[in-house]
Structures are given as C-alpha cells and as structure tokens.
C-alpha cells in the first residue's frame, strides 16, 4: 500500500463513491464516522460544557465536605475488523473519586449529564464519609502533591485516524489482498488478519483546579498463516503488528507480504524439526525477545508496583517479594549487572503513553532496575502517600511517578505497569547470535508455530513455571537448532533467574510487544508496551512437566 493510496482513502472516498457507484449504494467514510450527525447527546471531550458540568459536580462534592475529589469521563470507541466481519462498540463512563479523612469513596455510571455527575459526586463523598465514620479515625492514605494542570490537552500523535477508514478499504486492501497473496505462495492455504482500533477520549477534573483532556489511540493486528505441509495443515502466527499507540499508518501492505513470506518459510523449517524427548536437568537457555518482554512485565515490573509491595493487593493479584522497600531500595540485587529496566509512559508509540496519568501527574521515566539493582517502585499519588508514613526511609520524600491508571472511568484508578524498556547491550547480538554463543542448550520462543510463553507465578511473583507446550522449546546443538523439545517445563526463582543472565541482545534485536496485566478487586486489565531484547540465561532447571512425584 502506498502513501498516496492512503491519502486517497482518507480524503477522497466520498469523491470516488460519487463517481463510481451511481446505482449501487456503497457506504462512504462519512457514514461510518461516529460523528455522522448524531453527537448532540455526547459532546466532544473538549466541549466547554463538559468542563462546566465537571466543575459543578466537584463543587457538589465540596458542598458535602469532601477533602478532595476528582472526576473522570471517558468516551471509548472500539472497532474490530476481520476479513468479512466488523463490530463496533461505543461506551461512556463517568467516575467520581472522593476522599474524606483518607478514605476513598467511588461512584461511577454510564450517563454523562450534569445532574448525574452531581449525583455521583455526592454519592462518592457519602461512601467516603460512611467509611470514615465506621472507623472513627483517619486512614493512613494521603495524596502527595503534584503541580496543578490547567486546561491541558494531549492527543496520541498519529498520521491516519483509524476511525476514518472505511471497513471495505481494510477488507479489500489488507484482508483480501493478504488472503489472496497467501494462496500464491507455495503450499499456502489461507490467512487470518484481524485488526482492532480504539480511541479513548478522557477528561479529568479535580477539586484542586486540575483539568485536562486526552485523546488516546491504539491500533494493532494479528496475522496468522496456514499452509499445507508434510501432509497436514499447519498454522503460524506473527507478532509484527502488536497493539501500539498509533493510527492506521501502522499497517503496511508491503511489510505484510514480506511477513507472510517469512512466516511461510518459518513454518516449513519449524514443522520439519524432529521432536525430542524431555531431557531433565539444568541447561543454558536463550529467551526470544517476546518471552523476555513477558518475563520483565511479570517478574520485574509487577513486583515493583508499590501497592503490591505494601499489601494493597494481598487479597487480589497478590503481594510482592520486593516487600521491604526501605531495606531493598538502592541495594537489593535483583538481577545481573547487564539488566536495566525503565518504566516510561512517555515512550513514543507506547500503548500506555499519556501526557498525564489518571491522577493528573506528568509521568516520569522510572529506572526500576539499574545495572541489576532495584532502584525504584511504581507509584500513584495515594500509594506514595501511604509510603510517606509506612516507609520512613524510602517513602520520606516519595512522589508519584505517574502510574495511576484505570481502563475506563467506570473503574477507580490503581497503580498499573507503564511501558517498559529493557536496555539493550552495546553489542550487536541477536537471538541467533546468542544461540551460537551458547553452543549447546535450549532456546525458547522466536518461532511462528505455537504461542508465547507467559510465566505462571506464585502470589509473591517469586517462583515461576514456564510451560514448554505453549511457546516451543528448541534444542540447540553447536549453536544451531536441532529439534523441538516436547513436554518440558522450566522452574525458576525470580532473583536467581535474572542474576543468571549471561548476555543480552543489542539494539538491533530490540522489538516491541503489547503485554496485558490484570490486578485489583474487581479485576482491571490494562495493556502496556514492552521493548525487549533476547537474553541468555545460565543453568535453568528443566523438568518433565507431566511427571508426578
């Protein structure tokens, strides 16, 4: 697909339609736009009426003696395209959080009119009062300071708004084109290419005068290819288009064709590998970048969420083995000196990228692990406030680093994982070069057959289990793949795992992936981007997964 073609679609569909289809009705771009003459009831997120309504509701919270209140309004659009299918979901949410004596009250609903906002503000404050009354003493929660944001607005930088793209355009020029292209490949049978887009418009106001709006876009796609090979149908998947903070420009038909070719070749190679039995013992292992991304998110970033470390998630997602911040910060060796991980909600193109978090805090670049040592936790205003009293050393001057997030205004914000980056090494090492360096051992992931390994962790994220039946395990002999290992699993302890990292990939091997995480009661699911490189880990423990005691 060329740029000129995109521009044609974006700007000229209506003209093309009027010229080419005098008799047959073809829905035009404007008919698919959400703004097709019906938005009177739901104003734009930048509409001054919305700000006035939010201010009125904040006044109502103050009038019933809220110490602090903030209001979030979200207007979300989701559109999923498959080759012959399209589904659209539009939702609104309004959530009011009010604090009284350190107790939070939260009220939310789908209706965004002036009276409902006032009702929710009063309801949230009443809930906070009832909690405060029940305890009869102040809660330990307090909000750390942050600069007031006055009428800020930010939009995810995109080139082509995906909601202006006609489904037929997607279907013809990505879906059908790729589907037909696959059938021209040797042994190619079919392909599935599904894409999804979201646009979340968000307005946030608080009783301290903060008010800002954001328009956040994400785009992503899943490509899988089926070929007939060795007497059977075999499917391979690609992660070339993970969910990203971008617009329709993410998709490139030329790159898609090249990826189809790569997947077809990879299926042939992987399917022809001999299956090998489990060899129980300890082996050096190379993790592909996608597997490394999942491990960083689950075993480094999640344990570094300060609410988990303090016990706020004890009955939900769990606690953390990094549970003594005063003693651990700046001195606890979590990993090999090769490992440095940062959290970054300012990362261009990140799914979690924003100008302000849900507390109104400008996100900081957070060095979580620096040269293997724990250097920071992920915080929000209220959790940092608790740390001020609960953690006399680490919490003394702690501020929020901008990790407050909720999937929609219907849900109250929690500390969620930001975009993450595993700093690459200065070398030029890639996945295959690390395998060559290793010589003999095992490689996990990096293929197209099978899924991606997600570690199964205990409630403190300390002990992990990686199934070898989801992401494929490859036996490496003399630096080359010699077969696939079936029925094995890896057992590890998080600090020992990361301390055993012997080498990591260079910048050229860095890839970005979308990773999902869930926490809270009720559960909230958010996504973040992880930029990761392959890693070589020494002497991991392999077991026969199906062998009982």
């Amino acid at each position, binding site marked *: 697909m060329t740029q000129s073609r995109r521009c044609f679609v974006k700007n000229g569909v209506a003209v093309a339609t009027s010229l080419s289809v005098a008799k047959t009705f073809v829905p035009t771009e404007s008919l698919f736009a959400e703004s097709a003459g019906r938005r009177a009831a739901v104003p734009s997120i930048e509409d001054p009426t919305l700000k006035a309504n939010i201010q009125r509701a904040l006044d109502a919270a103050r009038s019933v003696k809220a110490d602090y209140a903030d209001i979030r309004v979200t207007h979300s659009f989701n559109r999923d395209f498959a080759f012959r299918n399209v*589904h659209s979901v539009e939702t*609104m949410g309004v959530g009011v959080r009010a604090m009284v004596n350190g107790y*939070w*009250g939260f*009220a*939310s609903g*789908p209706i965004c009119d002036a009276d409902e906002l006032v009702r929710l503000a009063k309801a949230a404050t009443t809930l906070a009062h009832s909690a405060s009354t029940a305890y009869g003493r102040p809660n330990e929660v307090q909000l750390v300071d942050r600069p007031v944001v006055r009428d800020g607005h930010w939009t995810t930088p995109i080139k082509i708004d995906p909601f202006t793209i006609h489904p037929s355009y997607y279907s013809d020029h990505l879906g059908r084109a790729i589907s037909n292209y696959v059938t021209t490949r040797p042994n190619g049978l079919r392909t599935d290419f599904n894409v999804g887009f979201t646009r979340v418009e968000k307005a946030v106001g608080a009783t301290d005068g903060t008010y800002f709006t954001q328009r956040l876009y994400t785009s992503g796609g899943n490509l899988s290819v089926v070929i007939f090979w060795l007497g059977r149908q075999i499917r391979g998947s690609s992660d070339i288009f993970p969910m990203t903070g971008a617009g329709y420009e993410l998709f490139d038909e030329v790159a898609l064709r090249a990826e189809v070719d790569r997947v077809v070749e990879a299926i042939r190679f992987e399917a022809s590998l001999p299956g090998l039995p489990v060899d129980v013992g300890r082996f050096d292992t190379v993790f592909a970048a996608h597997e490394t991304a999942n491990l960083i998110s689950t075993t480094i970033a999640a344990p570094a969420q300060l609410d988990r470390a303090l016990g706020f998630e004890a009955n939900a997602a769990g606690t953390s083995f990094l549970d003594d911040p005063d003693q651990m910060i700046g001195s606890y060796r979590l990993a090999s000196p090769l490992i440095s991980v940062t959290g970054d909600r300012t990362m261009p193109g990140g799914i979690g990228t924003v100008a302000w978090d849900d507390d109104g805090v400008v996100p900081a670049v957070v060095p979580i692990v620096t040269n293997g040592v724990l250097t920071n936790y992920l915080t929000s205003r209220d959790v940092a406030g608790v740390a001020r009293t609960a953690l006399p050393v680490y919490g003394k001057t702690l501020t929020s680093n901008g990790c407050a997030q909720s999937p929609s205004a219907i849900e109250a914000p929690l500390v969620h994982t930001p975009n993450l980056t595993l700093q690459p090494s200065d070398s030029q090492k890639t996945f295959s070069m690390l395998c060559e360096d290793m010589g003999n051992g095992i490689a996990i992931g990096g293929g197209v057959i099978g899924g991606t390994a997600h570690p199964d962790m205990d409630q403190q994220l300390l*002990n992990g289990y990686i199934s070898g039946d989801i992401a494929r395990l490859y036996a490496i002999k003399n630096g080359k793949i010699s077969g696939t290992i079936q029925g094995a699993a890896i057992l590890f302890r998080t600090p020992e795992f990361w301390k055993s990292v012997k080498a990591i990939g260079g910048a050229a091997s860095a890839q970005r992936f979308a990773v999902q995480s869930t926490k809270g009661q009720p559960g909230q699911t958010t996504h973040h981007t992880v930029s990761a490189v392959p890693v070589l880990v020494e002497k991991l423990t392999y077991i026969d997964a199906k062998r*009982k005691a």
Partner: protein
Amino acid sequence: MTRTNLGEDNRILFRENVEKLIARTKTFMTPGSVCSGVVVQGWWQSEMQWARNYLNVSADRRDLSVRFGVELGRASGSATTNQIDDASLKGVVAQAERNAYFKQSKAKETMEMLPPILPMADATVWSDSTFNAPTEQRAKLIAHLTTASRDQSLMSAGYIELRGGEFAVWDAEGADPKSVEYYTYSQAQCSMTVRHPKGQGSGWAGLSSYDWARIDAGELADRALKKCVASLNPVAIEPGRYTTILEPQAVSQLCENLIGALNNRIQADRSANSPFSLNYDQGLRIWRNMLGMKVVDDRITIEHDPEDPELGVIPRPGIGRIRFIENGVLTQMALQERRFGVEDRNINDPEKTRSAYRMSGGSTTTDEMIATTKRGLLVTRFGHAGQLDGKSLLCTGFTRDGLWLIENGKLSKAVKNMRFTESPLFMLNNLEQMGPAVPVFRPVRRATTVDMSPAIVPTLKVNDFSFTAMVDAV
C-alpha cells in the same frame, strides 16, 4: 430526547423501562431493515475493598449495554452502546445497519445460527438482602473485622461485592417475538486474606452466593485470621506423594477442568483429547465415549440442578437437571454452550453447559480426617491450577494461604507451600474420606458476565497426592 434516570432508586432499569427502551430503539431503524434482536444488560455493584486493616475504597458502580442486531439477507451486523438517549440509540442502530451491509457485501457463506438459549420468562435468582444491604452496615462490619487483625499485629485485606443485574432479550426468532425475555439476578461475594506484616504467614477464607444473607463475613474473618496465625513460620518438607486433606476450595479449584470436560460432549464424541473419549471404532468410523462406564470412586456424584435452592442458578428453558456422574459412573455429558452452527444441529442432545454443580459429600469432619491420618498434609487452597494434559486432566499449580503437616493424627507444623502435579480424576479415584458438601468461593470473574457458577463440594481426604516442588512464597 428521552433519558432514563439511573439515579439512586434506579440502580438497574427493571422490566418496564427495558421494554420501553427496546421499543424505542427499534423505532430508529431505517425502513426496510430487519432487526434480528436486541440485548439489554444492566448491573449495579456495591464494592468494598480493604487492605492494611483499613477500608481502602467503598464504591458504587453501575453500567448497562444495548446491543442491537440487524439482518440483511444471510448477513447480520451488530453494534453496542451504553448510552440510552435518543441520539445514541439512533447512532447504534445506524452502525449495526452499516455493519450488516458491510458483511453482506463481503459474505460468501454465512453459518446459520440457532437462537440463543434464553432464560425462562421471569426467571430470577434474587435476594433483597443482597440488593438492599445498607452500605453503612458493611463499612462498620469491615471496621470490626479488621480490628481483630490489627489487635494481633496482622494485616487484613479483603473484598465484599454485592451485585444486582438484569438481562433482557428481544429476539425476532425467539419463542414469542412479541415479548421481551427479562430476568434479574443478584450475586454476593466476600473473601479476605490475613497476613503477617513480614510475610511469615498467610490465611484466607471466602464464600460467594446469590444471597448476602448466606455469607457470614465474621466467620470468614475469624477463619482467615486463625489460619494466618497457625501458618506462621512454616518449615520446608520434601516434595513427594502425601495423604492429603483438601479443603472444599482446593477441591473446587482442581475440579474446574473436570467440569469443563463434562460439559464438552462434542470433544468426547469426536476426538481422543477428552478424558471421556475411549477409542476410535475403525468399523463404524466413530469415537467411542465412556458414558456408562465407571470413571471415579463410587461415592462421587456430580450434578447440575437448576432447582437446587442452595446452588442458586438462573433456570433456562430446556436446561434441566443433569447428573454428570452418578456413584462413580459417567451418566450424562453436556454440550458447550454457544450458538451452534448448522453442523451441530444434528446432535440430538438438548443439554447445554452447566458449570454450576454439586458434588456428593460424606459425613467425616475435617478433625476426624486429621485424627485418622498418620502422616499427611492439609491444604487450604491452590493459587493456580493450570492444565497440562487434556486427556488425563493433569494440572499443576501451588498451594497457598495455609499448608500444614499432619503427624500421628495431629497438625504438627505449618509447612512451606508446594507445587503440585495432579489430576482431578486421580484425586477422585483415590478417595479415603469425604466431608459434608458446602458452598465455596466461585464468583463470576468479570463484572460484565451474567452467568453464575456456584459450586457445592466436600472436603476430601485422598491418598498419594503428588507434590513436585517447594514454593517458598507466602
């Protein structure tokens, strides 16, 4: 413009408003369009989440959704919104029409769908004590519960959720196209974890039901606290096979995949990857299943009964009582609930998924089980039970929130958590003793989910339960 108030007195819309809403939505259709169906869901939740012995968030949340379907030839399109003003409803109808047009223009062959399985008219699983429980009372209850933990220098974290919901369907091909199928439901859950502040011990207790009055939060708090105290300073023991007493929560967690397999007759009939498929009959070219064969211990009966008052599930037409396993014999299986395509219509089985179930129990108390155990383990619950093998239902996961060694008929010491590798079928074939069946904590997993999945299971004492590694997390 009409707007329906969702104020304090209207946590959900209720039947009259839903019927008006559906009728109003249909008026926005383009002349000539055919509406295939409208689904309206609404829910209200009161949530209280506490941690570090303080009530952290007290929340009142509600939401709704309107899904509008349009048929155009053999293609259908739908769109969803949670707004109920005229402009938004008009927009969602137009969007569904455009989606149907798009699908029609692209469709080569569309699979014919059977109509959805609707609840029985006016069916309900409803508890006023869930829907109308005063917020202030629960806040005071939590303050009281956490005081006990605080007094012992322990940290309590927990969650209470009360929910009222509604589900309404107007289906053009339904039993009565002139009327709206409508039902309401309530759900309640309470769970809590009490931990030592330095992570030296942890205890948990939880329960879910449609009726808040059936949940004794005080008893749960007491149990979690006692478990935490009893679990302090655990010692490591060797992994291996142990006589194991599994409390009902652990039994239900390990049985999740078994219930899934019992609800998947298609898999048993058509493949080797079901624990209940037998072998391939080369002569008839069909898979044989294990219906009528003994699969577990004689004492085990597992059934789904919508009329079981203790279970509390929403009755649906055509979905009656089904006894999956009777006295150890596989007697019935059900199909996965989904909108079946044409090929599945020939299967003459009216049964659909029943994830809610009751397992038979016995009369042995946990104390009696401990007293008759020379050396074994007592398990509170599992942190996770992931399936390793579909044929044997072999699972792996780890224990949490209380694991004790039993020696010479007594709990001798708390032990560190362990990874297990075991199958529910092995467990149910190696029974020694059974306790009374009681409800467990098995709430709906997402706020947007309607179906409830309560379970009533006993404590089980089983032989040779396999623990494969130590897990030193608390």
